[in-house]
């Protein structure tokens, strides 16, 4: 049976549940990058992101039949967020020490009011996103990386739509402020 890449995520997952591994491969290709970036920018380091990434897909594979309705995209990112939170709870102390290091790096290597190259801007964006409060960072990444709507983000994070809107506004305001030279 040929699988069209134009099939919806939900249909591809259904096909996979029925035993078509090609459907899963298409689904995987659709989300491999965004999911990985989301995890890279919310985890402390790449090794953690790799672990979380594999764990997310493992849960998707095992719990595929539990997905009944709604958006597959929102479901996958909710799984990723839950895994990341579990990891955060286990390694709280480690994260605190890391964030201190990041602050030091920013204060030393990236002085304000300086023009940066593209490469440097990308690195700074990553660091500034990492500096955001966790709730704002989460909302921002779910919007930019996963492409979820305000309602979907609100559902994933389990807060109101207006709260998400507010978090996004604060996050963008802060990033625009610190990345003014790059924009």
């Amino acid at each position, binding site marked *: 049976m040929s699988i069209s890449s134009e099939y919806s995520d939900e249909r591809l997952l259904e096909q996979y549940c029925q035993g078509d591994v090609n459907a899963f491969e298409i689904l995987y290709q659709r989300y491999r990058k965004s999911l990985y970036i989301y995890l890279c920018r919310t985890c402390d380091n790449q090794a953690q992101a790799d672990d979380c990434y594999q764990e997310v897909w*493992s849960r998707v594979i095992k719990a595929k039949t539990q997905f009944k309705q709604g958006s597959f995209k929102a479901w996958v990112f909710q799984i990723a967020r839950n895994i990341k939170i579990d990891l955060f709870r286990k390694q709280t102390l480690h994260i605190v020490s890391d964030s201190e290091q990041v602050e030091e790096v920013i204060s030393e290597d990236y002085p304000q009011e300086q023009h940066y190259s593209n490469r440097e801007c990308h690195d700074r964006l990553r660091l500034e996103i990492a500096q955001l409060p966790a709730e704002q960072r989460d909302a921002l990444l779910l919007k930019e990386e996963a492409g979820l709507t305000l309602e979907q983000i609100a559902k994933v994070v389990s807060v109101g739509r207006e709260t998400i809107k507010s978090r996004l506004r604060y996050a963008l305001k802060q990033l625009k402020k610190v990345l003014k030279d790059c924009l």
Partner: protein
Amino acid sequence: MTDQQNDAYYDKAFSLLYQKSRQEEPSQALDRAVLQQASAQLKKQQSPWLRHIATAAIMILGVSVTLQLVTIEEATKQRDNEAFTSEPSILSEDAITHVTADVPAEPSAKRRLIIEQPKEVSEAIPTLNSAPVLEQDRHLDRLERYDTVAPVVLPKLEKPVPQQRIKNKAQKEAKQEQKAEFQEANKIVIQKKTRSISVLPPAQWLEKIKTLYRQNKISDAQKELKHFKQVWPDYPLDALKNIADRVD
């Protein structure tokens, strides 16, 4: 530029910057691991079906074999019953001669002969009531012979038994065979002696004996009774006993 235009410009610029900064990608090893897991999970998912199918096939096979065994057993029982309840029949004169001649010399030969010939014999057998006296007598003999022969003719499934048991069983069977053949030979001798005495259905026969008693032909009555007991050993003789007591 108004504040709104300013915000829109920065939003667009930020989105552009964000998109350009998206350079991280999972390694090929990660991709491989995930895809392998997905494929392995599918195989796991499929294998329980195979297991269920295999189990179902074994169960069906088991049930069908059991049913077949039951059917065979029932057929065997039915055949046994038919052998005993069917219309009476007799062996032809030649068959009896053939059988009795072989009895003392080679016991197994008799059995073989009986097994080989039942169809021909049964075809030539009239009903008991209409049969001549001598033939009825032979028929009774034949019924008894069937009793001993039937288990050998019909197939039976037996559990495997140890070698020693098989030897013992064989010895036992040989003894039983000898005993049965001896009894058979005796019966035939008795039959030859009593050929002159008529053989009737038991009720009719008893009535005849009663009449003899009533007519005070005691010796004849006792002779008939003796013969009756030989032919119908298990037939109840209560009614006759009263008359015999009275006569005595």
